[in-house]
């Protein structure tokens, strides 16, 4: 027994172990960067940075340093530089571990005039709810090429059958089944082809009145919108026309006719109308620059969104996020669905409705951040941003007085309630961007990392200085002796 312990002790305080761990770290980190360059950051994290064995190597390093340091007991002053430098590494490792366990590192997206307290963290979550409760289940992200083990959620009799790491949505709208079941409801959909423009592009677009993100969209420099006055509730206004921006608005009459108004960049308007059943195959000249023509391919009066996901051909940074395929009970009609990141759906299991949503993990802060204004400056004469900043206000109901507005800019973060907000990027838009993206961070291990760094650097300098002066001294001594 003692021999075994002694063996472990010898192993842990050997220089051989130290050098081997250093080399193993160097090689695996190099491999990680290559994986990252071929695929993406998440894949590198899966295989190396967040993998159990990598934590093991780091733990071995920490143990090695600790045991070596303890083996020098009782410590003398001459051990000082060695101890300080290696203590620095230990403290750094501890700090990183605290951050990994208890830190928050996410993103927050706010549009001017709105406020939010939601921080999104890059790990996918399945949210399931029925009438009585809401439950969340983390979905294990796996890189391309690794089999996804179907995930059973027995409480709801749900199974996450498939996982696509980078999923490309294949959107289509299908005519709703005319069967009289209670949700044979749908909304009008319009499939268009736009040809021409400055780049001579041919592109297809779907407009669908069922959801705001489908009823109006950006198509290159122009906007397209489908407006069904009799479907809208009172508070929804007709789609706006920005002066100077080419905009095409289709509106559906109660008689089933489709009329359009095309606004050009010089604010000229062309209008027209097609009678019910006469719109398919019609070609419209909206009078825009670049010989643009708009063809109506298909009009579906009552359509439902039928989105499927397929693996994307991309697997790098530009690749789309993941998607899952969920079934309820044994599956079947209305009991199986594809969910892309951010999608939600209702599954029907033996007449019981379960709603499922797939989204990044979200953390609610105890306060929210309101974006008053996003400002961007560009280098003169170019489109390259030179600086951008967000004027924000913290809204904290636990405080009696309201907070003064502050500006968050590059390198000037906002600290509030132990959380730090950094200006990270923005969503580009015309005529100016109004959505700011913050990186939001709570790092309880920060102090350890800073102290560790300080110890490490001071220790190394001390170590080398001692060596240099000792060397000088012995050299002059040998000289004196000679």
């Amino acid at each position, binding site marked *: 027994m003692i021999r075994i312990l002694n063996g472990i002790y010898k192993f842990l305080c050997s220089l051989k172990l130290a050098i081997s761990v250093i080399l193993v770290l160097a090689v695996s980190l190099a491999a990680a960067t290559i994986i990252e360059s071929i695929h993406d950051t998440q894949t590198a994290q899966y295989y190396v940075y967040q993998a159990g064995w990598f934590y093991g190597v780091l733990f071995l390093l920490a143990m090695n340093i600790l045991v070596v340091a303890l083996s020098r007991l009782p410590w003398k002053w001459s051990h000082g530089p060695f101890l300080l430098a290696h203590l620095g590494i230990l403290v750094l490792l501890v700090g990183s571990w605290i951050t990994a366990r208890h830190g928050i590192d996410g993103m927050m997206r706010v549009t001017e005039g709105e406020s939010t307290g939601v921080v999104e963290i890059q790990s996918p979550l399945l949210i399931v709810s029925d009438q009585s409760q809401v439950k969340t289940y983390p979905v294990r992200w796996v890189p391309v090429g690794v089999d996804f083990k179907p995930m059973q959620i027995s409480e709801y009799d749900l199974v996450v059958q498939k996982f696509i790491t980078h999923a490309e949505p294949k959107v289509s709208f299908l005519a709703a089944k005319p069967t009289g079941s209670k949700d044979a409801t749908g909304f009008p959909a319009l499939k268009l082809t736009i040809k021409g423009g400055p780049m001579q592009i041919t592109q297809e677009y779907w407009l669908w009145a069922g959801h705001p993100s489908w009823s109006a969209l950006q198509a290159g420099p122009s906007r397209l919108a489908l407006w069904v006055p009799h479907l809208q509730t009172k508070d929804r206004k007709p789609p706006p026309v920005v002066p100077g921006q080419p905009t095409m608005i289709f509106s559906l009459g109660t008689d089933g006719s489709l009329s359009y108004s095309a606004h050009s960049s010089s604010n000229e308007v062309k209008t027209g109308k097609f009678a019910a059943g006469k719109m398919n195959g019609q070609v419209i000249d909206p009078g825009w620059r670049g010989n643009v023509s708009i063809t109506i391919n298909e009009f579906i009066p009552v359509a439902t969104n039928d989105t499927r996901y397929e693996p994307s051909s991309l697997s790098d940074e530009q690749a789309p996020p993941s998607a899952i395929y969920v079934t309820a009970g044994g599956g079947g009609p209305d009991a199986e669905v594809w969910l892309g990141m951010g999608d939600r759906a209702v599954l029907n299991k033996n007449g019981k409705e379960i709603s499922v949503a797939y989204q990044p993990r979200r953390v609610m802060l105890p306060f929210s951040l309101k974006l008053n204004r996003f400002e961007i400056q560009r280098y003169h004469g170019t489109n390259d941003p030179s600086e951008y900043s967000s004027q924000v206000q913290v809204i904290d109901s636990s405080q009696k007085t309201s907070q003064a507005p502050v500006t968050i800019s590059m390198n000037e973060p906002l600290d509030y309630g132990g959380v730090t907000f*950094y200006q990270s990027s923005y969503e580009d838009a015309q005529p100016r961007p109004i959505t700011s993206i913050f990186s939001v961070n709570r790092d309880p291990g920060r102090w350890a990392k800073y102290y560790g760094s300080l110890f490490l650097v001071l220790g190394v300098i001390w170590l080398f200085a001692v060596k240099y002066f000792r060397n000088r001294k012995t050299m002059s001594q040998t000289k004196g002796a000679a």
Partner: protein
Amino acid sequence: MKKLLSVCTVAAILFQSVVFADEPAEKAAGEMRKGWNFSNARLIPVQSNGRIKPLDTYTREMVLFMTGSRSFQGWSATEFVFSLIGHPRVWTEKEFIQVNREDVRKQLGLDATRSRFSPGELLHKSYLSQYVQTVQDMSKVPANKLPPRDQELKRVMERVGLFRTIVSGDAWPVIPVKPPEPWMSLSSGDKENAEIRSHFAKMLLAYRSGDQAQFESSAQLAREAVQQAYVKWIPDHSTELKLEDSYNRMHPFMISWIFYLTAALLWLLMVTGATENKGALKKMAGWIKGGAYLFTFVGVLVHVYGFALRCYVAGRPPVSNMYESVIWVSLGVMIFGLILFFMDKKEKRQPILPAVACSVATLALIAADSAPAIMDPSINPLVPVLKSNYWLTVHVLTITLGYAAFALTMGLGNVSLFQYLKKDTGMGSSSDLTARVTALNQLTYRAMQFGVVLLAAGTILGGIWADESWGRFWGWDPKEVWALIALLFYLAVLHARYAGWFKQFGFAMWSVLSFLGVLMSWYGVNFVLPKGKHSYGFSSGGRGWVAFFVSLQIAYVLISAYYRYGGIQGILKKAKA
């Protein structure tokens, strides 16, 4: 350079027929105007790539881009561009547009043996016109993700386009407007600043008719008119413009490498002991020593001066791209060489140290100087995250100083290997090998210590900066990770040396090999693995040269090991143990 004009613009103007102004047959069309100095024209302010620069800088960038050469057939850049707009017909038939890759020449149906072609050939006698759509589609992909052949095809299109825009007046952004709108070119706009336009028209006429006095006076007026127009909105830049012009003409880093090269040769003379033997060299020993010191110091002074000038003109420390970091690292190599040299007592100073430092600095500066297409020497504005940040400057300068110390260890390690090789192959005397190598190793070890401290501190400072501006201390970003890997290599070497795993030969060998890690984190991450947050420094090109250097180093180490350990069996035996 890539932002000189967008591909859309190129396609729009490329194949429409431009009607040239009626151009009478002039005797000196397309020839240099002898004795003209363009001293006023050079200083006319233009706005390009987000900053105000002298016409000289702007035209140099254009000439480099079109011809691939810093000074095309001895033309001054400013005159060349005036000649293009003055005599477009002549230039349409002259071969000055470079097509770099043989496969692209073949693709375009051009003579594969030439590297420069006339715009006329490219437009009318090649397949270039068939690729307009292809090139337009490429503009959706970031340039460094395109295969090299497509990149070059795109650049050829842009080069021809640039010629057309110079001729049409579009590539002359000299008419100031209120920021942030871009300045207008000579051909755009109508009523505003008719004055500037008329001065340019006079300059052009004077250039064509060969009237130097008229050209100079119009250039002076144009320069003043542009200046008066822009000071309405932005601060006066005339001092910066003059300094930038002098920076352009002085070419300080070329001067310093010439001095370093001379100094290196003189130091080497002292190393070989030639000055101690009998003969003419012995008599000149004092002169050689004095000269070595003098050339080294003048080289450093010019280097520092050029560096300071560049900082002033750019309004920031030069830390943003490969070119700037090579300039800084070579200065760092000199500084460390001199520090280590003077750290020893006078009688113990080793001339090999400045010899190695001067050689490494010379090689680095020549590389930076001769590959403008890979290491872009133009001064460009910073991306937002790099702006106005104290930590950034400290972090980058510290890390790159660490690279400098390691570059010195690499140089010194190579010299040690050379000493072994000389003995092991029986080509040199082996009398004082141990003493020499011991001294060299001591220097290598010290330089490595500097490097480790600086790289560790710099990486940590990078963490502090990242914490301040991105919100995390460490994010496994490739550039961070490779700096750490390089550091780990050196830490392994230092620990192994401490453990006595290798003797002096092993230490020399590994101090050379570890530099490959530095090379990866310095060059490789930006040029080979372009991913991650340090993307502002990304570029492409030069892989062949770096691969050549890396294989040369590895081959050199292997050959030394082969002789030292007595053949391949010896190496394998050593590797097993």
